[in-house]
């Protein structure tokens, strides 16, 4: 009797360990079963899968041979499960983006734990054919925690929905109770997070501002921000709105009811789910519909062709060049940032900023336009701009190993942004230029082309190139070679750690390195 109990405990524990990795990936895929499946398809190596399958078949055979045979061999199956569980758990441990133990994850763990424990205890207590069946199911679940993961996801759906609804209603109530509060919605395929920070800083010259932190741009992220940080004295809530599917922006708008909108761009982002840029446009302009329903004002990027071609006439455009009501002129830039004249509906004010890159200037103009609309004085806008610091990991200039310069652009993940970052790198005259990047992901059909373009752009600017991920970097390498890059100066690293080792070996204080788009583990290979 001792062995089967031990085996049962091992199986439950193994299931638990295996789940850590599965929940990590489920979480990184925003708890969407379909996206999690896609990850599973792309990331389940054949050999261990075959081995696991073989063990499961063995377990079935043993079960069919009778209760006693099964009980005698169950320890072996549990040990196999433990081995894979342990391996999976350690994969989470060494990841860049680890599993976050949210209340939801804890609920799923609890469900899975109770389920497997019940299978084990009942299996042992009942015995006989039914007991053997229950124990076999336990063995299968502990060897394939993927199934357990999906089981807990679906079983807890109704619970999660009622939790979510309670939080959403609570957030709505809180928001509507604050006297005179104005909500600004920001969305866009790229630039929205930077613009959010810039706008919040400028608005803070005149108002008490709350903004969604980091990349909290999902409905539940917004709800959490409101419930945890909204104060009675908040005057403006700047709400970043992210979208991966049609209707996502509307869902957030239905919670916060924005009075003002800022649309930073419409582009080829998340095409795996959006399919077409037309769908991206429609989704981003759900913000427009919501703001207009409240009689508010929407600003949008006038440099973006898709926006200019499709937006309604009452959208106020801003741009990096003359032609709109809000734009910049006389732009000069260098190692310490950019200087330019900001034109706000005819009023001109000189500004300087530490932010690197033309797209940042465009974000500044968009934020300044909205702040101007909200009554912040041009001179206060200029002061706030001069005090801006780069967002973490977005073209952030730092000193790195051996006194070299690092342009940390690790959070950048869009094609235009990456090419702009390469341009920024190019502006560092007279220095040895290096790029470290694994390329871009989630771009659908265009992924190969975009990465090839990045590879060739980097080739034209860089003295040395370090690509990360052997398989991933194939299009990058092709692009670089096509642009005539000398392969002696090109390195392929299997991880960022290795890339930094390669870099450290040759860099000096006259080196500037662009770190472009670090990816969570589910993409690296």
């Amino acid at each position, binding site marked *: 009797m001792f062995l089967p109990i031990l085996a049962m405990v091992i199986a439950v524990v193994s299931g638990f360990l295996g789940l850590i990795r599965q929940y990590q990936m489920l979480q990184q895929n925003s708890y969407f079963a379909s996206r999690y499946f896609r990850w599973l398809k792309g990331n389940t190596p054949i050999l261990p899968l075959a081995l696991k399958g073989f063990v499961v078949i063995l377990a079935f055979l043993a079960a069919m041979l009778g209760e006693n045979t099964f009980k005698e061999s169950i320890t072996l199956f549990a040990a196999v499960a433990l081995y894979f569980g342990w391996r999976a758990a350690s994969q989470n441990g060494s990841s860049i983006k680890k599993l976050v133990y949210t209340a939801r994850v804890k609920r799923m763990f609890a469900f899975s734990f109770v389920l497997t424990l019940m299978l084990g205890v009942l299996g042992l207590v009942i015995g006989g054919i039914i007991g053997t069946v229950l124990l076999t199911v336990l063995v299968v679940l502990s060897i394939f925690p993927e199934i357990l993961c999906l089981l807990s996801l679906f079983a807890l759906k109704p619970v999660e929905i009622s939790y979510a609804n309670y939080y959403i209603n609570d957030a709505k109530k*809180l928001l509507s*109770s*604050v*006297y*005179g509060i104005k909500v600004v919605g920001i969305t866009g395929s790229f630039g929205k997070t930077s613009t959010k920070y810039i706008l919040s*800083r400028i608005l*803070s*010259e*005149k108002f*008490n*501002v709350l903004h969604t932190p980091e990349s909290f741009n999902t409905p539940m992220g917004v709800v959490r921000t409101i419930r945890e940080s*909204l*104060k*009675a*004295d908040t005057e403006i809530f700047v709400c970043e709105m992210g979208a991966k599917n049609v209707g996502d922006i509307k869902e957030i708008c239905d919670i916060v009811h924005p009075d003002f909108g800022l649309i930073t761009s419409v582009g080829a982002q998340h095409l795996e789910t959006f399919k077409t840029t037309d769908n991206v446009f429609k989704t981003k302009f759900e913000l427009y519909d919501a703001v207009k329903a409240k009689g508010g004002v929407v600003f949008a990027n006038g440099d973006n062709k898709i926006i200019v071609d499709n937006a309604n006439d009452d959208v106020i455009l801003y741009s990096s060049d003359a032609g709109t009501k809000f734009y910049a002129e006389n732009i000069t830039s260098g190692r310490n940032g950019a200087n330019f004249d900001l034109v706000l509906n005819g009023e001109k004010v000189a500004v300087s900023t530490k932010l690197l890159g033309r797209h940042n200037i465009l974000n500044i103009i968009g934020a300044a336009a909205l702040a101007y609309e909200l009554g912040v004085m041009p001179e206060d806008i200029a002061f706030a701009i001069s*005090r801006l*610091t780069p967002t973490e990991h977005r073209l952030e200039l730092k000193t790195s190993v051996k006194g070299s310069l690092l342009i940390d652009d690790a959070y950048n993940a869009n094609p235009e942004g990456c090419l702009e970052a390469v341009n920024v790198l190019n502006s560092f005259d007279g220095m040895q230029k290096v790029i470290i990047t694994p390329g871009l992901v989630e771009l659908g059909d265009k992924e190969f082309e975009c990465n090839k373009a990045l590879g060739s752009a980097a080739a034209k600017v860089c003295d040395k190139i370090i690509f990360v991920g052997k398989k991933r970097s194939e299009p990058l390498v092709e692009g670089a070679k096509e642009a005539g890059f000398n392969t002696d100066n090109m390195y392929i690293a299997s991880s960022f750690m290795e890339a930094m080792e390669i870099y450290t070996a040759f860099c000096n204080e006259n080196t500037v390195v662009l770190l472009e788009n670090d990816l969570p583990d589910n993409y690296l290979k």
Partner: protein
Amino acid sequence: MKTTVAFIFGCRSVEHEVSIISAVQAMRSVNKEKYDIVPIYVTKNGEMYTSEKMYEIESFRDMKALIADADPVTIIKTGKDVVLKFLNNKMFAKKKDIVLNVAFPVVHGTNCEDGTLQGYLEFLGLPYVGCDILSSAVGMDKAVFKYVMKAADLPVLDCICFYAREYAKNKEELISKAEKEIGYPMIVKPVNLGSSVGITKANDKNALVDAIDLAVSFSDKVLIEHAVSAIREINCSVVGDTDSCEASVLEEPFMNDEILSYEDKYMANSKSSGSKGMASLSRKIPADISEEKSAEIRELAKKVFKALGASGVVRIDFIVDTETDKVYVNEINTIPGSLSFYLWEATKLPYSELLDKLISLAFRRNRNRENLTFTIDTNILSGISFGAKGAKGSKM
């Protein structure tokens, strides 16, 4: 959810009663649609109480009854919030803590207006209306205030200044120094009191000795300056912060005794209609002076405000020597009686809007500070190891 404003008034100060009047006026004028108000009355021995009845000035006539009925409270920080905590909680009649968003000190004089209360609020991390610790403290010490004005090239009357014990020891010496350097008539002031308490004019030595005796009974430090014989006192209020501020129309208070005494400021009409604070003082608004002079004084007022690093609403009192037409900065009230609302109403800014503006200025100062510090994220202790194993990587 409205912004909750804690009006703090009273305190251990000779101007305790004046503060109550100023606070009640302010609480009654605040825009109730936008703000929730919490009155926090600080007794003369420093205890805090709150009560709904504190909106009515009549309640303060019977102080014992008011206190007996009011709830003893304190302000503490819990988690992210600064809250008003009730200290008399009974098991079944528990009063819920009130989250405070901003404090509005309406206090006059030492032990509160001089940076004391401001320091307490800074320590709690609660945004507050008005001058910060430094400007409050400097504004309260008439001597240090003069030094700061001198350093900023702003016109002040020369003065001598000494401590009570110095005077007890070297009485004759200090008096002859004053006679020589300042000359009669002189004004003697305790350095750290507002509302003219303890200030007297001396035309001869006997009067000077009496004046100093009175002054040292209020303060350890005494200031003596020359009394301008042909004098007009002109006051100007300034609202804003060091980034941008504006000056009100000017007032000229009427004087009973040669200088504006405490009685003039706060007691003038008290017998007939109840004390109404600064607002009831007999005065002329706007002051009857030339456009040019008025513009000069208003400009000067803004410079004083900036030189001190003030914030919120202040009243700056000037002396005009009518013989020479020269203007001197006399003193600043960092929390003026009645918050100078009567000067702002005369400048076409209604009291409720003035209060609204003052509260936004409090938040603005707070935001400016947050903007300064919120990018520093390094824990210097993380690189340090203590003890015998050696301080690897330590720079200390």
